[in-house]
């Protein structure tokens, strides 16, 4: 959690589902809080890719629409 974190919560959408998360999280912080391996996922925020190199800088804000994907079996 960064210094800017407060006890307040915000509402966001992750993979089509509503979630309540702490305010002040970066994308990297959210990925960690969800228990995901950051090296194995890609994140799209409001229809734009968030490059992995910027995960620590991009902050999650109220109303964000996030897609977090990984590779699964397919043909």
């Amino acid at each position, binding site marked *: 959690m960064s210094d800017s974190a407060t006890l307040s919560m915000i509402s966001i959408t992750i993979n089509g589902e509503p979630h309540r998360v702490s305010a002040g999280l970066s994308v990297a912080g959210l990925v960690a809080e969800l228990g995901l391996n950051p090296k194995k996922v890609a994140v799209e925020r409001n229809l734009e890719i968030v490059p992995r190199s910027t995960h620590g800088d991009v902050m999650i804000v109220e109303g964000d629409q996030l897609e977090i*994907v990984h590779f699964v079996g397919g043909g």
Partner: protein
Amino acid sequence: MSTNDSWTVAGRTFTSRLIVGTGKYKDFEQNAAALVASGAEIITVAVRRVNVSDPKAPMLTDYIDPKKYTYLPNTAGCFTAEDAIRTLRLAREAGGWDLVKLEVLGEAKTLYPDMRETLRATEILAKEGFLPMVYCVDDPIAAKQLEDAGAVAVMPLGAPIGSGLGIQNRVTIRLIVEGAKVPVLVDAGVGTASDAAVGMELGCDGILMNTAIAEAKDPIRMARAMKLAVEAGREAYLAGRMGRRMYADPSSPLAGLI
């Protein structure tokens, strides 16, 4: 000739001419074992939402090492160019790979490609630096257009995805092979080993399959059968088959008959 018969797509050289999918397997262990038996060096994978309620669920990458195998992210399930491009941008971010399999589907019933959308997506992806290997109809003109648009390989269907019907139109597959400057791979429709051999005998550079292995009663054994079939078909193609005759021609000499 046969000892060093490799093929190259977008500057990357591979020995195995079999590309296998990773869907429909009973579990990751079976999938990984079938992959080893197939001898494949490239695997197709899909891009899907992570299950955020179960983040510790096993992942494909835990069983099939992306450093050892070439992951070919696909756009299975995409019905528009935009969806396919969005999926591949995410795939590139997740894995860092620019060699991708593009498929833009036209309808769920046949999973036939929508060639207008496929062509449009190919152009955009090529401009964005992707190296798209493109699933397409078995149409030599469409294959040419894809090549012009930046496809690094054209991959005509032999029959509908998952149908196992075998190569339905050998003539058009051969026409595509003869006209193409990029590798041609039969993608979809293979049901059993002889189907794969037919594709290779037509001069294709490789075969891509998933269901034929995954839905076999013994997927690992079928994976090995496919490896052998692809190799056999390739050898037969390089050897050059005999001509066809309408009537019999004895193999034993007629001279010296008692």
